[in-house]
């Protein structure tokens, strides 16, 4: 974290409207359906995740890389670039930005390996090319490199703020036991304070299970466009909102929101009733919590929608059996929707292999179209840009 979100480039330049996100895909949409394009987004995010794991990056650099990738494609089209080269460059730059740099040759060799495993042949395994791509990437990012992730917002809203985040009081000397103890004490005290502060506005206590769902779901949000559309605190809130909903559904008695036992009983009752009716209202605690923020609820709900919609599409793209990420209640919650979807569109299967083929086809077709003198209404393909993007 650096600088305040409100004065950041993230806030001022990189929160865009839905229509500009859509406009950025207009050329790609000539070669693929919107659904396929959406799936490509998931797929590229998965590849970034895989490459990041190979480079031993933590979640934050991986998240940063994914956002760089999304931002780059606000100004470019998939079919006019080599997305594999771009995503390797995103990982390379993100690793540096998040202070865990990886040597360019390592990135190239690991990326080469990873792409081979995924049967992708378009990646040019050449450090020079990657270096060049890094430059174009930085340029298209307007050299705005600091990204605010919703993880921190999630931690602070759930009172799990890491000891010194946001406040910068003391140095930590690893070997100094005394300081460690002092810090642990302070943390304990703070936790207690949070627990005691019953009315703690803007803070909610949720159980570990729900917290975990939040974390997983945040990781998943990087497969969507929400990070271009909403500020991080909205995304964090949306995730809490969904997690609370799920927790109430799956096990109302366990949702440890701050409520007395009598309240919890009525809560359980009311949820069981509403469940039988097919309605899932958030608990009053949760509702109160969500309402306590000065955010627009329609915006929040739109964000919730954008996140939820990912799951059924992802499921058809890449059935959860193929993924190793524990989904738990999420999978259950979306299972019903998936069935419907599968029945509707059961025929045209679109998975990772198809995605790889699609990218190749899109690029090939685009080359043909651009080369065609009668390519009416296009003419936007810059010769220079085509060359400089290091296309195959």
């Amino acid at each position, binding site marked *: 974290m650096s600088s305040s979100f409100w004065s950041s480039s993230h806030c001022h330049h990189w929160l865009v409207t839905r229509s500009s996100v859509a406009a950025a895909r207009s050329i790609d949409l000539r070669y693929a359906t919107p659904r396929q394009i959406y799936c490509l987004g998931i797929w590229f995010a998965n590849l970034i995740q895989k490459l990041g794991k190979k480079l031993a990056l933590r979640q934050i650099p991986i998240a940063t890389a994914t956002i760089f990738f999304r931002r780059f494609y606000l100004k470019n089209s998939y079919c006019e670039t080599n997305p594999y080269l771009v995503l390797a460059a995103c990982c390379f730059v993100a690793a540096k930005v998040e202070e865990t740099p990886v040597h360019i040759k390592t990135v190239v060799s690991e990326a080469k390996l990873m792409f081979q495993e995924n049967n992708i042949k378009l990646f040019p395994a050449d450090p020079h090319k990657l270096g060049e791509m890094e430059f174009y990437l930085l340029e298209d990012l307007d050299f705005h490199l600091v990204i605010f992730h919703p993880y921190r917002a999630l931690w602070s809203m759930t009172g799990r703020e890491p000891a010194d985040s946001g406040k910068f*009081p003391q140095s930590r000397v*690893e070997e100094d036991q005394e300081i460690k103890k002092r810090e642990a004490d302070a943390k304990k005290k703070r936790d207690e304070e949070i627990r005691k502060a019953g009315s703690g506005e803007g803070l909610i206590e949720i159980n570990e299970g729900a917290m975990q769902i939040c974390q997983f779901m945040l990781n998943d949000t990087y497969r969507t466009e929400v990070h271009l559309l909403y500020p991080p605190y909205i995304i964090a809130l949306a995730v809490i909102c969904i997690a609370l909903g799920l927790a109430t559904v799956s096990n109302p008695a366990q949702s440890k929101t701050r409520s007395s036992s009598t309240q919890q009983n009525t809560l359980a009752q009311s949820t069981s009733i509403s469940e039988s009716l097919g309605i899932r209202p958030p608990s009053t605690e949760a509702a109160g919590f969500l309402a306590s923020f000065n955010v627009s609820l329609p915006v929040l709900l739109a964000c919730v929608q954008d996140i939820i919609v990912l799951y059924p599409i992802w499921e058809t793209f890449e059935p959860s059996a193929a993924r190793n990420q524990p989904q738990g209640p999420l999978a259950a919650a979306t299972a019903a929707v998936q069935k419907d979807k599968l029945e509707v569109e059961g025929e045209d299967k679109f998975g990772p292999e198809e995605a790889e083929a699609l990218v190749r086809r899109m690029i090939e077709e685009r080359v043909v179209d651009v080369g065609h003198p009668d390519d009416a209404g296009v003419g936007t393909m810059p010769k220079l840009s085509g060359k400089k993007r290091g296309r195959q």
Partner: protein
Amino acid sequence: MDLAAIENQRRADRWDKGIKIGEGTFANVYKGTEKATGRKVAIKKIKVGEMKDGLDMTALREVKFLQELRHPNIIALLDVFSVKQNINLVLEFLDTDLEAVIRDKALIFQNADIKSWMAMSLRGLEYIHRNGVLHRDLKPNNLLIASNGELKIADFGLAREFGDAGSRMTCQVITRWYRPPELLFGARYYSAAVDIWSIGTIFVELILRVPFLAGDTDIDQLKKTFHAMGTPTEQDWPGHTKLPDYHETPQHPKNPWWNMISSIGKEGQDLARELLRFDPLQRLSAVTALHHEYFTAFPRPTPPIKLPKPLAELRPRALAPDETQGKPILSGTENGVVKRKAESPSTLGLDGKRIARRLFA
């Protein structure tokens, strides 16, 4: 052209690039002007094309932080654009730096001048720390001075954020003379207090007109530090013996080193002592330092415009030396610095003109 290229071209057209005024390993600096207003700027051209291993971390950090930080006491990044394979940073043009001011023996510092520089440095630093960033290379050479006398912190090539608890950081940062003892002992978990130490040494340097602790090597730096201030005991600095690179140092008795800077007055001496505590946890933070009574005591800080400035023509500012990840960044080999090293603090007290004019001694 695509949108991004047009945008970039539009930006590049705003500026006129003039003569080269500085050269470094990864960047050249040119004088420039804004076409519309004629305002003077400095254009730092980073040679990316020549880098085999991708953009240098130093350059990346500089861009990353300057894009976000905006404060009157921090150098302003006005624009970034690219030409061919070069990244151009358009920075505000600053006449000189604090090192040149300190070195110019024709200038006499009033205590009020020192207070003014300190206040501006700490304000900038407070902003940096408030935003979760460590500068990690504060030294007079990196405190630039605008034509109106305003001091601005520059060179974010070593800066990094410290928002996350427990992330290991390299201890090979900060130019040696301004490096705090915990880094010399190899601490990997440290905080804003490292910058505070640097500010403390700069403060003393402003008073003495020579670097306060000018070690020749890292070991020598510790020796000089302890020689000047006394070897810390477990009581002064709990836990320091457990730092990774801790080693026994010759025992020096406690030394009332602040008598050396008595000219600055009682409050000033106290501030220096609080900034230069051995235990990083006991050091003042930038914000508490700004609330120190030194800043409210007499005399009032000089308005920036009236601060002493060298009359000499602008000397090309030395750029940050090439930084290979994790290697020490030391620029103590520049000509001017070597010259300054020749004078030891002890010979100075005799010559009234060389040190700050004594108002309280």
